[in-house]
């Protein structure tokens, strides 16, 4: 399956900005289940300096600076991504693999590199703090002898059921306990929430940002969050690998989720971040995302 993605970000400033330095996670990374065939960034005004690199998490980062006065800034990223069949939806039956108790034990005792490195994702991260409240919310799904993956699937479903998807109800800075309390948010909050729950119980979990197919196939429903960047999460089961879940859509990402980047939380994979000098105190931001299926 091949997708073409066009991601446009546009800033309009009330006062001209003299200088800006930005970096973003805007180009899809490679993963076992996807390959970025092509990706291209256009910045307007023309940037003095434009660099591409791979970050600590293996994500693609582009860095650019605009060093002459500008009243608007536009970034367009066009990418072509091929998804293979690596990720499959096992349907309802996830009752295999490590039980929750086994997973916790293996995390402590396994000495393979993958498990050792995955332990990074049990720790707190800038936007996700573990807490007793999160642990208490998640605990009923994680009985010792239940398979970890089915427990996570159940948590995903519970978040979908218990929480209301409501754009504008939160900002990027809304803390997790407030989301838990108010029971509403957007995809980023639900991903953070699930990760917070898993870490509070001692399981490694990471944040995945990406896109959803925009135009639904005939006869299927348009998925929530498809007109902007989307976010979901992955959990690590020792010896078995990373598994993704989407609490916003109550499903397992397979053929319609295109990954851009992953990290400990949103702060590691922010689409666009930067510093501006002078002006720009008030700004109008427009973001649009188009995901088009080119080939089955």
């Amino acid at each position, binding site marked *: 399956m091949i997708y073409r993605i066009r991601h446009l970000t546009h*800033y309009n400033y009330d006062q001209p900005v*003299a200088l*800006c*330095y*930005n*970096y973003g996670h805007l180009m899809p990374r490679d993963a076992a289940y996807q390959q970025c065939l092509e990706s291209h960034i256009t910045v307007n005004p023309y940037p*003095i*300096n434009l*660099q591409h*690199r791979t*970050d*600590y*998490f293996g994500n693609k980062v582009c*860095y650019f*600076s605009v*060093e002459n006065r500008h009243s608007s800034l536009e970034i367009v990223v066009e990418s072509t991504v091929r998804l293979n069949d690596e990720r499959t939806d096992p349907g309802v039956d996830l009752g295999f693999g490590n039980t929750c108790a086994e997973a916790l034990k293996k995390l402590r005792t396994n*000495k393979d*590199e993958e498990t*050792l*490195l995955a*332990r*990074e994702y049990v*720790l*707190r991260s*800038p*936007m996700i703090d573990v807490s007793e409240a999160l642990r208490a919310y998640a605990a009923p799904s994680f009985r010792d002898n239940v398979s970890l993956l089915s427990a996570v699937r159940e948590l995903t479903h519970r978040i979908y059921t218990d929480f209301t998807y409501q754009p504008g109800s939160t900002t*990027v*800075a809304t803390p997790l306990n407030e989301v838990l309390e108010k029971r509403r948010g957007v995809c980023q909050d639900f991903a953070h929430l699930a990760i917070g729950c898993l870490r509070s119980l001692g399981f490694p979990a990471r944040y995945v940002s990406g896109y959803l197919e925009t135009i639904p196939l005939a006869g299927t429903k348009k998925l929530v969050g498809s007109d902007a960047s989307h976010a979901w999460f992955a959990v690590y089961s020792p010896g078995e690998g990373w598994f993704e879940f989407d609490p916003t859509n109550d499903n397992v990402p397979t053929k319609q989720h295109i990954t851009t980047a992953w990290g400990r*939380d*949103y*702060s*590691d994979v*922010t689409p*666009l*971040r*930067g*510093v*501006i*000098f*002078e002006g*720009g*105190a008030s700004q109008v931001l427009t973001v649009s995302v188009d995901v088009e299926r080119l080939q089955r």
Partner: protein
Amino acid sequence: MNDDSRQRPWSSLPRQQQQSLQQTQGGPASAFGYMQSPGLTDEVYDPRGEQRGHWQYLLNSLQALGVDALADRQRKALRILRDDGATYNLSMEPQARRTWGLDPVPLLIESEEWSDIESGLVERAELFDLVLKDIYGARQLIRRGVVPPELIFSHTGFLRQCHGVVMPGEHQLILHSVDMVRNRDGAMCVISDRTQAPSGAGYALENRTVMSRVFPSLFRDSHVHRLSMFFQTLRLKLAALCPNDDMPNVVVLTPGAYSETYFEHTLLANYLGYPLVQGSDLTVRGGHVWMKALDGLKRVDVILRRVDDYYCDAVELRSDSQLGVPGLLDVVRSGRVVVANPLGSGVLENSALLKYLPAIGKFFLGREPQLRSVGTYWCGDASDCQYVFDHFDELIIKSTFRRAGEHSVFGGELSADQKLRLLERIKARPQRFVAQNYESPSSAPSWVDNGLVPKPLVLRSFAVADQSAYTIMPGGLTRVGSNDDKMIISSQLASTSKDTWILASEPEKQVSLLKDNVSQAGIGTDRDMDLPSRVAENLFWMGRYAERAEALLRLLRTVFIQVNSIDPLSPVARDTLLRAVTRISTSYPGFTATNIHTPSDIEKELLALIIDESRPGSVAANLQAMLTSSEEVKETLSADTQRVLNDLRDSLAELADTLAPGTPAPEEALDPLVTALLALAGLSHASMMRGAGWRFLEMGRTLEKAYQMTCLLQATLVAELDSADEATVLESVLLTVEMLVSYRRRYRARVEITSGLQLLMIDQANPRSLLFQLGALQNHIGDLPEASQSVGLSLEGRSTLEALTTVQLADLALLGVSDEASGSRTLLNQLLVTVQTLLSNTATLISDRYFDHRVEHHQLVASRWEDE
């Protein structure tokens, strides 16, 4: 007494001879009855209680000097430190600045023992370098299970943004410092490592400079290993790091004058010969880092940083930091600038690493490191954490991440309540805490209350990466604890310091940086304009504030004399002078208000204009502003200037006491300030290089002097008074500018307005005349770099020339005539206003052209998810 007893030091004698001499002296001769503290290992005494040979020479020499001479030399040392401006800032408050404490008794270590310590330190630096490369590279320590993953992953100093960043050369860790104590077995034991931006090397250098001046012979005869080689290596290393092909431009990056170790930053920058810059002096453009110098941007190749890595780049690191250079990390990553120590090196300051150091040593080197570390327990390890809870009272508790204002605590010294709170914090985030065994440090004699007393010590060592290995500073910074029992020595906690003498068996060849400076910088290279524009701006303002303070001080002196004179002033003359005070101080309403009549009201207002620092325009406020500017340009000021500034600071502090209401002849209390300001002006003339810095200082001065003269004339001579009052006022003006005598000599007549204006405005021979100052300003502006490059006059040149010609073309006879309708000298007023406007324009134009108008930057998208 002197220490010129030309004895051969013990260390230079063959070992056998030393022993025999020691025996013939029979038992420990203890200078000043020095006794070791029971239960503490002492540097002077061996385990059998015998004085060590290498200490005897020192102690005997001190004894020979005697109490008075020693006390005198200690005072001398303190004076030098103070004159050098050697301070340690305890907080943001300028009055919390402490003079650096130096104990006149050095710590002695024999060459032979030092070479063991040195090889341990080299090995440790090599090991930490390997750890650093691994953490930001392959992470084998984690993958191979040498350290628990959480040890690295949970540490705030682990900057994932720095992954994969490498600098040229074999080593990544350029500077490494270690704090160590000698434990009960007599072995050195490391209690912590500094890898971020280690401070102290500059203080060690300052201690050495002072000691060699205060004890010249003792120092010479002791054959002390010199420190200059260390700094030489540092210079060569920094030059070698240069990633670009030109001559390397190295800068020292400081957080600013409020940093606790700012003195050291200025000292190092000057000693090494690099510009001292703040983050806002640098900018990233076109993929390079540039310094905002006076004549434009200068590329920067290497940054010796004294700013913690986390604050260095608001784009990728801490986004609310204004101390760094936005975009820096990306330039580092692309290899166009090198930062030493590298960004991310703070991860090595995690004290929990000490627990795993033997294992890390085995992994990388195949052996445990020679130099032992203090027993360390990491609360991130469940069994260690339990041990810490069980033995809390015996342990020192630290955070794994060093933050300003956070200190290690001794478990046993906490109150029940404090203990409970700390335990809660540990339970909530165990990975952030370590505990260490208390290593009782050794003691050495300190000079306290005219005697030698044992005090505990911690030695900080300094390593710098060489081309092939690490070079260790021979000695280092010894810090002395204030009490002799349980102590955690930190310079932040008001401890003092010692010079550290590594005794060589024979005199060492002298190495000085000076020669090297010349050959490397290239004679004749014009580095004049390499001044950061912030420094030029502060020099400019330093000049202006100094002149403002002086102008007001002079007028106040006159007013005190006149108001308290035996011949009482007429109310009109008095009010004219008082209103002039308000005009010069710009502290309105002051005497223009109608409610100040009684002598005590007048005195109160006059005193407030001197001592009230919170009143903008007062003498104290101007002097304080001048001192603040001088702090920013400390590295460009001579030692003499520093001394005058110290005196000024002291006089200012004493002013409130000497100037209590009712003080007779208050004008005399102002004399020391005027004298100090004149000394400052004299020094800039007599001893400052005629570089760009000097020009800006002098421009500030001349511009302000001219401006103040116009204000004074405007406030006193524009309104026409009856002839007696006018004479009094004019006399007062002449007295204020010290021209009364000259006037009388020249005109031998009663003072009269036209000849007064002649002397005050256009007399070229009078250095205080308006024309003289405008001419000087014109010359300085003509010498500015911009002026020499452009065709014709610069805008600021035009503006000054216009002021100059306006004054030159003035018809003094006409100016002296007053307008019948208004009863004032309208033409004079018009002229003065014109000159004032032109001077203000000149100041604005200079500022626009040369000074950086820094603006705070902010986030493209507001975020609140910073770590910590």
